[in-house]
């Protein structure tokens, strides 16, 4: 019992028998996934395979119909207070950054700490500057998002999430909307974050990133987890035919 308990304490996220439908369409089928604290997971798969939907279920941007999601020991249920509590601890970075365009970079970063976590403004601003320095754009703090490049905006978005001091970070195709020359600056920030021990779930097609930092790579297709393995095995000896096809398509172009 205590053995099981101890193992559960180590889990940042546990997903059990997750099923989700969009109307009639069965988008997630029997997903089971355990994420240890400090683990870095990369999720890949063809478009429409349900990978984004899955990580969006973890902070309830999408509602699931069956199964259980437990984040930091808190089960995700239909209760606004519980959902908001989980969202406090789970940061998310979006494909299109989704910065608030009417607020400065600094305001973007301090808004949630001040209003959700009730951190005093001075302290929140100090934290924000710390993270903006970490993503290497402290000098942009007083600009508006519209004045920044895509790569800079995405780094602000990462800093904004970090300001909430999350236990888990979700990345939903963070580099897909970026111009090629800006991908690296965002990946560098993510790699640094991974090396500091942040629990991360990244939906991405950046296979170099997966090889560098991932503890596990998960391949999804048609709403199912087809294969999961450590990057070494995943890339060199993929088990399933579907995985092999996918890898050959994205690696050999």
């Amino acid at each position, binding site marked *: 019992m205590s053995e099981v308990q101890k193992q559960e304490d180590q889990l940042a996220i546990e997903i059990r028998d997750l099923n989700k439908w969009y109307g009639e369409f069965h988008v997630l089928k029997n997903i089971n996934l355990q994420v240890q604290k400090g683990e870095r997971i990369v999720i890949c798969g063809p478009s429409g395979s349900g990978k984004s939907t899955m990580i969006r279920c973890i*902070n*309830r*941007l999408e509602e699931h119909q069956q199964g259980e999601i437990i984040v930091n020991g808190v089960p995700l249920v239909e209760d*606004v207070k519980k959902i*908001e*509590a989980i*969202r*406090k601890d*789970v*940061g*998310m970075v*979006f494909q*299109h*950054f*989704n*910065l*608030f*365009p*009417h607020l400065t970079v600094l305001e973007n970063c301090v*808004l*949630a700490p001040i*209003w*959700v976590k009730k951190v005093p403004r001075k302290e929140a601003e100090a934290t924000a500057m710390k993270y903006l320095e970490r993503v290497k754009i402290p000098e942009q703090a007083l600009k*508006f*998002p*519209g*004045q920044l*490049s*895509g790569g800079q*905006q995405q780094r602000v978005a990462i800093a*904004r*999430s970090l300001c*909430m001091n999350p236990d888990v970070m979700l990345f939903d195709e963070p580099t897909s*909307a970026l*111009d090629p020359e800006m991908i690296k600056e965002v990946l560098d920030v993510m790699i640094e974050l991974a090396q500091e021990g942040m629990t991360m779930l990244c939906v991405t097609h950046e296979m170099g990133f997966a090889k560098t930092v991932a503890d596990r790579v998960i391949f999804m297709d048609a709403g199912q987890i087809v294969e999961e393995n450590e990057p070494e095995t995943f890339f060199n000896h993929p088990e399933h035919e579907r995985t092999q096809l996918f890898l050959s398509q994205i690696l050999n172009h």
Partner: protein
Amino acid sequence: MKYDSQPTLPAPASTIGAVGWMRKHLFNGPINTIATLVLGYFSIIFLWPVLDWSLLSADWIGTTRNDCTSDGACWVFIGQRLDQFLYGFYPEAETWRLDTAFFILAALIAWLIIPSTPRKGWVATFTLVIFPIIAFILLSGGYFGLETVETHKWGGLSLTLVLAVVGIVAALPFGVLLALGRQSDMPIVRSLSVVYIEIWRGVPLITVLFMASVMLPLFFPEGMTFDKLLRALIGITLFQSAYMAEVVRGGLQAIPKGQYEAADALGLGYWQKMIMIILPQALKLMIPGIVNTFIALFKDTSLVLIIGLFDLLAIMQASANDPNWIGFSTEGYVFVALVFWVFCFGMSRYSMHLEKRLHTGHSNRA
């Protein structure tokens, strides 16, 4: 390979300036040239009599109709009745109170409109919270030794402004709540909002005013009376909030889903998300719609005539029926039209300007 940097040359003279503009827009090709000349000719033919009547052969100076001797407009009528057009039947000795109230309002609006003035937040709060109290005390009196002026004596342009400003300002918060209600996940809140909006939008304002003034008192207990102007204001506010709700809804729908998701993902609650993230952005998009609604309301206020309130138009009509001035209603209508046009055009230009200035949102995004 070697290259020399080329000098920057001015554009050819025939493509810039007034000549270039006329070439490009009025005389580019034979058909356009003919159209320009023909339309120019007709413009002069039709505009000349208007100009002649209204300005060149008009009478400006005098005190009675006998001073209007020429063929043109008799602006003496307007000049003689101007006080009534502005203040209605408000006691002459007290009109300074209206002047003061509207002067304060104009100053506050100017403060808010001019971009460089400081402390806009405070001034806006003052305008919306404290000013209405001051205006009410000034207009209706009864406090601080001010003589009470009952609302049936209010009239003219000042009444028009009171109806329009109160109507729009009071309708905005209700409109926001209704629009949020219409988007709510809670089925009862949503249906109630939809029903409210659709009922009020489906009824002409004139009916609303009529019901507020004639039918509503039938439902009140014997002896309980309600000020007629107040009833009209409540009717206008309820009516207008339905329109405002649709304007707000349009603004809300234009905000990308990602903004809602980002706010959700950060753990913001519903009201925090709406007040700090969604509404400030939506408000910018709503400005043209709000101004549009306001312009429509400003003109619709003339309908209060049917419940016996004398707005600018009604009071002009009454004056034109005065035996001393019979036969000058054209001048009256032109004057009223001009006043309405100046207000509406001003608002419309300001909203265009504001839209441009606030245009910092999503279109800038990569």
